[in-house]
């Protein structure tokens, strides 16, 4: 389709052509009617994320994506991302009025190797685990103490990730476009490989686009310390073998130009997962039925299958020189999690050379049906149990603002600052004994800074 402009000023024409080119290069499973023009052939899109959780995780994540338009019908793209995370993270245990000592696997060394290390990351102490009879290796554990009244965190948390992706888009006809790609991600304890393919068909004079995409992901988990047996006691012993997870996702999308100022998208996505979905580092506390003091820490257990579905409704509305982006998402899965997400951005553009975009996001989820803050000693163990706060009932708000400066039609710099605030129920009804004095869901507060630079040539 050809872009036909009402305005006749050359600057406006250049801007619109650049916008059309950028639109063509913007990925995603749902295609808007994408105007074709004579765009720059290559776009480099880069960003640096600095993520800071108050008293918890810190992360830095650079990303780059390069998209090259070979001709009017074919576009090739590749992307790279890396991230580095350090800090403290909850691991499922409840706080106590008494000091609590935890131990986890740290390292395996050949038997007879002198142990000179006395402390591990996060201020923990290295402990020696007696080797089994006839063993040729021995395990070192990391032990740490959580003070009374303190929400237990694991302070030695760190992770590095390197990810890459390749993509291809091919116009098959004037109305039909095929796209596909592969992605790879590697962490020190996790690997993910995926491939996707999608088809988009335009109708109604390019005012309607119907799209469908399928993604297959195969993951391998090889946690430090091995994979624990579910609902067994937390220990420093080296544990079971690697585990795998397979996920198939499908997305159906309908994008409609409602009128000259309004673009609307409706998507339905479905996912089916099979394999290991337990967090190997998370535990659930077993507490005394009278005092509420933790007596055991058991490794959590989640079902090995999960079915998710969601409906996503997105709107872009042009108002004078500004753009409103408003979306709603409804989500549910067969773990019992249900959620709604509302997202609103207002791109205020008083001048072609800069814009300011406030952002609000609201999210609320219900708990997974196997979520428990803790289990009670003496009762039968459930088949599945997790105290991971991400599976709890909570709500969260994001407040942000983005400032962008598009220079000419060739490059843009932007900076975004956001604040994320997550609240759950820290004082659940019926809490036992000393747990009534504790906050079982401390708020999560996180700041993000995103710096972006896009260059088209």
């Amino acid at each position, binding site marked *: 389709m050809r872009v036909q402009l009402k305005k006749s000023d050359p600057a406006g024409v250049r801007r619109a052509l650049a916008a059309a080119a950028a639109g063509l290069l913007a990925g*995603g499973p749902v295609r808007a009617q994408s105007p074709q023009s004579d765009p720059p052939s290559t776009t480099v899109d880069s960003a640096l994320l600095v993520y800071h959780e108050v008293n918890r995780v810190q992360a830095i994540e650079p990303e780059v994506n390069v998209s090259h338009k070979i001709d009017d019908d074919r576009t090739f793209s590749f992307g790279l991302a890396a991230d580095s995370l350090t800090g403290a993270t909850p691991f499922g245990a409840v706080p106590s009025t008494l000091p609590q000592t935890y131990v986890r696997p740290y390292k395996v060394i050949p038997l007879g190797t002198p142990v000179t290390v006395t402390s591990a990351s996060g201020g923990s102490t290295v402990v020696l685990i007696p080797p089994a009879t006839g063993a040729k290796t021995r395990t070192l554990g990391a032990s740490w103490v959580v003070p009374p009244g303190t929400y237990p965190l694991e302070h030695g948390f760190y992770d590095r990730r390197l990810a890459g992706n390749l993509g291809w888009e091919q116009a098959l006809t004037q109305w039909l476009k095929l796209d596909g790609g592969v992605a790879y991600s590697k962490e020190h304890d996790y690997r993910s490989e995926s491939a996707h393919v999608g088809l988009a068909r335009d109708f109604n004079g390019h005012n309607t686009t119907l799209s469908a995409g399928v993604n297959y992901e195969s993951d391998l988990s090889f946690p430090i310390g091995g994979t624990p047996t579910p609902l067994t006691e937390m220990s420093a012993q080296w544990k079971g073998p690697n585990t795998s997870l397979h996920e198939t996702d499908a997305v159906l999308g309908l994008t409609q*130009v409602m009128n000259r100022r309004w673009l609307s998208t409706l998507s339905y996505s479905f996912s089916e997962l099979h394999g290991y979905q337990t967090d190997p580092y998370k535990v659930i506390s077993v507490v005394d039925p009278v005092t509420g003091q933790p007596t055991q820490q058991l490794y959590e257990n989640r079902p090995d299958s999960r079915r998710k579905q969601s409906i996503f409704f997105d709107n872009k509305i042009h108002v004078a020189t500004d753009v409103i982006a408003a979306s709603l998402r409804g989500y549910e899965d067969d773990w019992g999690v249900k959620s709604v997400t509302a997202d609103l951005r207002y791109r205020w553009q008083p001048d072609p050379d800069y814009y300011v975009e406030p952002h609000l996001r609201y999210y609320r989820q219900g*708990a997974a049906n196997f979520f428990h803050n803790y289990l009670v000693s003496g009762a039968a163990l459930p088949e599945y149990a997790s105290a991971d706060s991400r599976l709890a009932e909570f709500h969260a708000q994001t407040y942000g603002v983005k400032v962008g400066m598009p220079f000419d039609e060739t490059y843009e710099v932007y900076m975004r600052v956001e604040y994320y605030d997550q609240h759950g129920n820290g004082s659940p009804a019926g809490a036992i004994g000393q747990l009534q004095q504790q906050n079982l869901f401390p708020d999560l507060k996180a700041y993000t800074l995103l710096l972006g630079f896009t260059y088209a040539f």
Partner: protein
Amino acid sequence: MNNCESCSANPPAESKARGWVRRAGPALGALAVAAVAASSAGCATLGAKPWDHDLLAEHAMQVDPYPLETRVDAHIYFSKEASSGGRSFAGGGCGCN
């Protein structure tokens, strides 16, 4: 799935938030149906003529004008919340959840 409510002091009760989510479900469904109906019935009334696509051609009016930003956000929320997907595929491509 969980047939052992008695072993926990805090069974997953029908809380306010969950009720809110449940009440929002039909509204979301109605919204979706309305959008589909509007889209499918609208060939005659919806859309814009080719010469009226000037605003739709602007960068900010694309379906996903900043895909890198979208990807970063999806990664953050995937690691902090139980939901994923919607705009795109639900798979996180990482071990962060």
